[in-house]
């Protein structure tokens, strides 16, 4: 019995860089990012779409990197925490998380930052309840969430004032 698997071509834009690779069709997006591109800021937590640690942006929308196959991103634009961080787009959010200690072990943090970013794009003045609701697809075992809610709330207020 043979386990040989045919490879397929993937052309995708990752963090602004055009990437072409031959990959196994069964490869998940997060495994592709981590293992093929060595973008290890996206984390694997549960592998079934519950914990949110693998959150990345595909064509501007947050998705679960473990629930999407890499080949499904053919022709798409993928943005990871590394791309978002280096671009400076979420510096205020990162600083607020730092000041408020809205992270402990930091494993959930990239997903939290990307999900918070999307929330703040959709809503400029979310209530604490709305922040909690929006972040409820992202599991954090360390903080108990309050500091994260504080940080997102603080950034929303500052962005509104600008």
């Amino acid at each position: 019995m043979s386990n040989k698997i045919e490879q397929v071509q993937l052309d995708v834009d990752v963090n602004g860089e055009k990437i072409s690779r031959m990959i196994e069709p069964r490869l998940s997006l997060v495994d592709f990012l981590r293992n093929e591109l060595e973008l290890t800021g996206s984390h694997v937590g549960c592998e079934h779409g519950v914990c949110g640690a693998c959150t990345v942006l595909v064509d501007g929308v947050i998705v679960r990197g473990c629930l999407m196959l890499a080949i499904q991103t053919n022709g798409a634009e993928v943005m990871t925490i590394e791309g978002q961080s280096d671009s400076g787009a979420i510096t205020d959010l990162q600083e607020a998380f730092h000041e408020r200690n809205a992270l402990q072990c930091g494993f959930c943090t990239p997903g939290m930052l990307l999900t918070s970013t999307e929330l703040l794009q959709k809503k400029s003045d979310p209530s604490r309840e709305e922040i909690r609701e929006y972040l409820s697809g992202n599991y954090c075992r360390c903080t108990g969430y309050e500091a994260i809610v504080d940080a997102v709330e603080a950034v929303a207020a500052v962005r509104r004032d600008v």
Partner: protein
Amino acid sequence: MPELKSMIKDHILDRPNSYIGRSVPRPNAKRLLAGRGTFTDDINLPRQTHVAFLRSTYAHAEIVSIDVSAAKESPGVVAVVTGIEMAKICSPWVGVLSHLEGLKSAPQHALAVKKASWQGEPVVAIVANSRAQAEDAIELIDIEWKELPAVTDMETALDENTPLIHPELGDNLSWQRDFDGGDVDAAFAKADNVIEETYISNRHTGVCLEARGIVADYNPGEDELTIYHSTQTPHMMQSLFAKHLDIEEHKVRVICKDVGGSYGIKVHSYPDEYATVALAYMLKRPVKFTADRLESFTTDIHARDHIIKTKVAVSNQGEIQAFEIDDLTGIGPYSVYPRTSGIEANQVVNLTGGQYTNLNYRARARVVLQNKTPMCQYRAVGHPILTMITEGMVDDAARKIGMDPVEIRRKNLIPDDAYPCKSPTGLPFENLSHHESLEKLVKMLDYDALRKDQSKARKKGIYRGIGVATFIEVTNPGPAFYGVGGASISAQDGATMRLDAKGNVIIETGVTEQGQGAEAVVAQCAASALGVTMDKIKVITGDTDITPYGGGTWGSRAAGIGGEAAVQAGKALRDNIVEVASIMLQCDPSTLDIRDNNIVDVSDGNERMPLSEIGRVCYYRPDTLPKDYQSELVVTRHYVPKKFPFAFTNGVQGCYLEVDINTGFIKFKKYAVVEDCGTVINPMLVDEQVRGGVIQGLGGALYEECLYSPEGQFLNGTMADYLVPMAVEMPDIEVGHVESPTLDSELGAKGAGEAGTGGAPATVMNAINDALYPLGGKVTAQPFTPERILAAIGAI
């Protein structure tokens, strides 16, 4: 505190520009925010392979035969190794400690040899060029099992007709401990009221978001193992890997980079991790193992599977006269190595009722074997259970005599001026603040207003409850925990501090960072003692080749023990630097100090020279110093608590919640905690430890439960089925402090990492029962699910 402060010249809390007590953000958090952390699975080494494990699908089964020939031919496969082959490289272990007298367990192997004893036990290791290829090959292994009857119910584990898990042990009783203090029988005989109850603590687990992971490499040229490991205890793991692979300890290097959550889960040694290291040794190339989520659920240690019968005696005036408990706990098929699975029950026996003046106390704990995932220490070890039963019993007593739950605590808590004193089991309390903490909590909750609101709401058919739970917590453990029982676990920790040539400071410490802020706290202590700003300091942790030999981070020890070592190292380095400066400036060293990175005059704070000048002269121009003088700009200091076996902390939690009697759902309306962890080094980090800890405790109290079929099949091994607290259900938590420093160290800091978890289940249970009281309902079995709440009030 004044007593000790006056005795120590230049006390750490008196330093100018001190960082002690300041909410400094953690310097090392920025890389994590940028997605630039280095978790173990992020590490890839040249020629690396990946291991996957064929694991037992049965809870208890004999291995009849294993055929790996097809798997060996599968694409990308490098090696397939069975238990018999593994046992030639990696010796078995037995999880016992001599101070837990009578504790017994059976030899456990890295891969099961003759039989598997829980569903998930590793049986065959498959090494391949990718994890996927290794998993493909697992499918091709032909293994024949003979299923054995599984022992899953701890209540029948000791019955005569129950099969033995390890026949050589003679029974399924791993350990029993009995304690009898005061005159319990007399107290119950003359009591006005005796209340009996049975409490159940559910089996749950840590669910670290980063699963366990390890990358091991062996260099035959140097006969050296290098192991990247997601662990809380690098030196303990170094010692264990060396011992069981029969390699000299200094030839094993354990490196611990970022750890994605641990909570006690990563303080133990695991069979699949020994196997990974042994495979690297056998293959002479790197092998990586990262647990997937199902492996995490079925092989990470579980915790807190207890059934406890309780009995409390109380006078009509509210004086608690006796506690009696009978604890039964199931720990899986093996006592976990090397910390053992007896500690949790031991804590329950040692600490139940410890905050109260009553000394009539009897306890029995029986620790039984089962064919389920091994159980061991998890954040707040034993405290969630013992606080649930203690505070459950106190509320039982209060309800029986119609006394307010705060009032009965006021009446029975050890007075704040009674210290030093001892617990019913003889453990020494140095300095606690139960009453001050309780009064502070009462204010924070606005307790009387809540009672009014509660009674108003009840008239409208809305059921709200107030829960209060006081607690004690063991922190800063000395050798009494493990070392005295024979475990290679350092109670002492050290800090090495070095002034470099440009005036910056490098600190290496034996405590480790898993996100709590250990590195930040060590930097704060060192910066304050030395007199430099935080930005001048770099902290290095988690490398057995580099850091002082130490215990790592567990048992709420990093700040209290690692922080004190940093204080003493900082003071010693300051003395050395000031000595050099006094020679350069030709003045008496007592007239100089270091403040804000400069040598200054003590009298007026005038700057004399920057530390970079000391570095320049000592390293580049020592010829300008006297010929008979040698500067020393590296110092190491160690610390271990000596006056007390551990530093007890105390605190109290309170919450106000509403139970929807139609759905059984609860909604928090208020949550507050008062914590006394001695000197608070970084208030923000302490508060966040408390908050995170409370939420973790609420997880076990409300949602989390490892469910098994009667045959020992794990039923909810996904995060879709095993529920954890998410943001939307959890409350904001107000945190207050009382500071009763330990005099065992100059710093006075006690641990803060576990108290939140220890007190939360009791608090929420008491609040739910307060809400259900008018309906005649009571819950005593965690998790307090909507189903259990509805059943308690007879709605279903």
